């Protein structure tokens, strides 16, 4: 029985490794004891490693895992912390509750790969609370891979608080395979002298439905932010982007930049919202939705690419 359990576990680890690689991850880092990492399959923690300056607590629940990660005061973690979340079966639920703290003066990069290569009926929820302490820095890269079927609902929700002088950079990417349904909802409370940059890149196909809502409240003096969204839609995909930036403090500066390209019967809606209630704050926005630029397509065709290949190069460039 024990042998069988170990064999099943070993297969699951191997399967997750393959799925992690399919999502663009480098499996070698998950076995490197000098690098912090966490691998979760469904509601099971398959492996966890923490290095100096990183405190990692995890608790398996019926449908997922509760995680508390703390980057200790003053530690600047030299290598990225690698996270792998996913489900190998066609159906199931995974709920990740993340409580992340970067203590004062710390710096870390989190590299997350969320992989659901066989998804037919899957729900992946993430509920995160993130605190970026005074003069701390978090760079958070999240790459998703959902396989070819589109049978997945991905519901990432996060509240991020950035204290004085803190820095938060996020980059969410979902461009390979299908999206399914994505309902992305992040909001940020930016303190004095803080910097926040949020980038979202998604490629919707077939009947994918993409909802992205990002809100940054510039609550501290001299807080700065950029919301940048790049969405490409083809076939019958639909997207709704809401980018909100509020300037509530003197010398706060914010910008919302949304660019979407659509093809076939795809539909896109972009709603940049800027609110300012401090006369010394300034928030700007730009949004563009259109088809792929004709001159760009024709230029690449004049170099020998056929039309589909040219469009593919342009869309992938925009999402790169």
């Amino acid at each position: 029985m024990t042998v069988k359990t170990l064999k099943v576990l070993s297969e699951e680890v191997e399967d997750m490794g393959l799925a992690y690689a399919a999502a663009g991850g480098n499996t070698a880092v998950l076995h490197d004891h000098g690098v912090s990492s966490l691998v979760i399959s469904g509601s099971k923690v398959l492996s966890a490693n923490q290095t100096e300056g990183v405190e990692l607590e995890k608790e398996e629940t019926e449908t997922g895992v509760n995680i508390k990660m703390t980057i200790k005061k003053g530690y600047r973690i030299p290598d990225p912390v690698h996270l792998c979340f996913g489900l190998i079966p066609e159906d199931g639920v995974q709920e990740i509750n993340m409580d992340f703290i970067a203590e004062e003066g710390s710096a870390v990069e989190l590299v997350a790969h969320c992989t659901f290569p066989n998804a037919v009926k899957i729900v992946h929820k993430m509920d995160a609370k993130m605190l970026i302490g005074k003069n701390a820095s978090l760079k958070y890269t999240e790459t998703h891979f959902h396989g070819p079927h589109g049978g997945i609902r991905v519901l990432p929700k996060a509240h991020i608080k950035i204290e004085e002088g803190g820095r938060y950079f996020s980059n969410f990417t979902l461009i390979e395979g299908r999206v399914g349904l994505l309902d992305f909802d992040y909001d940020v409370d930016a303190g004095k002298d803080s910097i926040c940059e949020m980038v979202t890149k998604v490629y919707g196909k077939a009947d994918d439905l993409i909802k992205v809502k990002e809100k940054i409240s510039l609550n501290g003096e001299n807080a700065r932010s950029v919301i940048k969204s790049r969405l490409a839609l083809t076939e019958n995909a639909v997207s709704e982007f809401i980018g909100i930036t509020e300037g509530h403090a003197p010398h706060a500066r914010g910008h919302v930049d949304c660019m979407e390209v659509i093809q076939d019967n795809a539909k896109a809606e972009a709603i940049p919202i800027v609110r300012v209630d401090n006369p010394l704050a300034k928030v700007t926005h730009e949004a563009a939705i259109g088809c792929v630029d004709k001159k760009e397509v024709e230029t690449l065709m004049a170099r020998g690419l056929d039309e589909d290949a040219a469009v593919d190069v342009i869309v992938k460039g925009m999402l790169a």
Partner: protein
Amino acid sequence: MAVILTLKNLTLNRDGKKILVGVNLEIGDGEIHSIIGSNGAGKSSLAYTLMGLQGYEPEEGSILFNGEDIAKLSITERAKKGITLAWQEPARFEGLKVRDYLAIGAGGNGNITEEEIRSALRKVDLKPEKYIDREVGEALSGGERKRIELASILTMKPKLAILDEPDSGIDVVSLKEIVSLIQALKENGASVLVITHRKEIAEASDRASLMCEGAVLRSGDPEEISHFFINRCIPCDNRLYLQED
């Protein structure tokens, strides 16, 4: 000299307006041929028609490339035969690296070496180490983007390069480099059809043609054509007068 391109009675209408009016022209194999003329003469429209851009399908006439009528072929099909176009205002291409853009013309990264890409950048006077990993659309100046456009033509090694005002937005010093580049294209085996407003480029050509109101008025020695244009055509700006001349 063998002829690579022959235009016979090429006619183009757009939005009810006559843009090209029975254009007849021959370009020799390995020839640098300038097209000069006033704004609105139909020079760029001729370039777009030769490349087969959408909206520039001729109503009448033929475009014979090495004896084959290509007037109905797509842009890609024409490119695969060795024809390419450099736009007056190059496209921006957000996110596309210069190295990848230059490789596309060569048929992809597998068909071109790093050194060939670097060499193409050096030929347009761009330092490879500074530009090769930058994005084509990344806040480059108009002149820099134009040079990258020309470098992408070099890596493609075309049989016929159509250059639409490669001199626009280029300073006087750089103009000499553009002339050198056009000659380099010729040395690489390309025929070059260059649309220009610059005397320096026209006079560096093997032959030149003058366009006015959608037609080629005369072709011949570049200095003579250039002289005629400057002294007779610009003050006149009236085709009827020229015909009476």
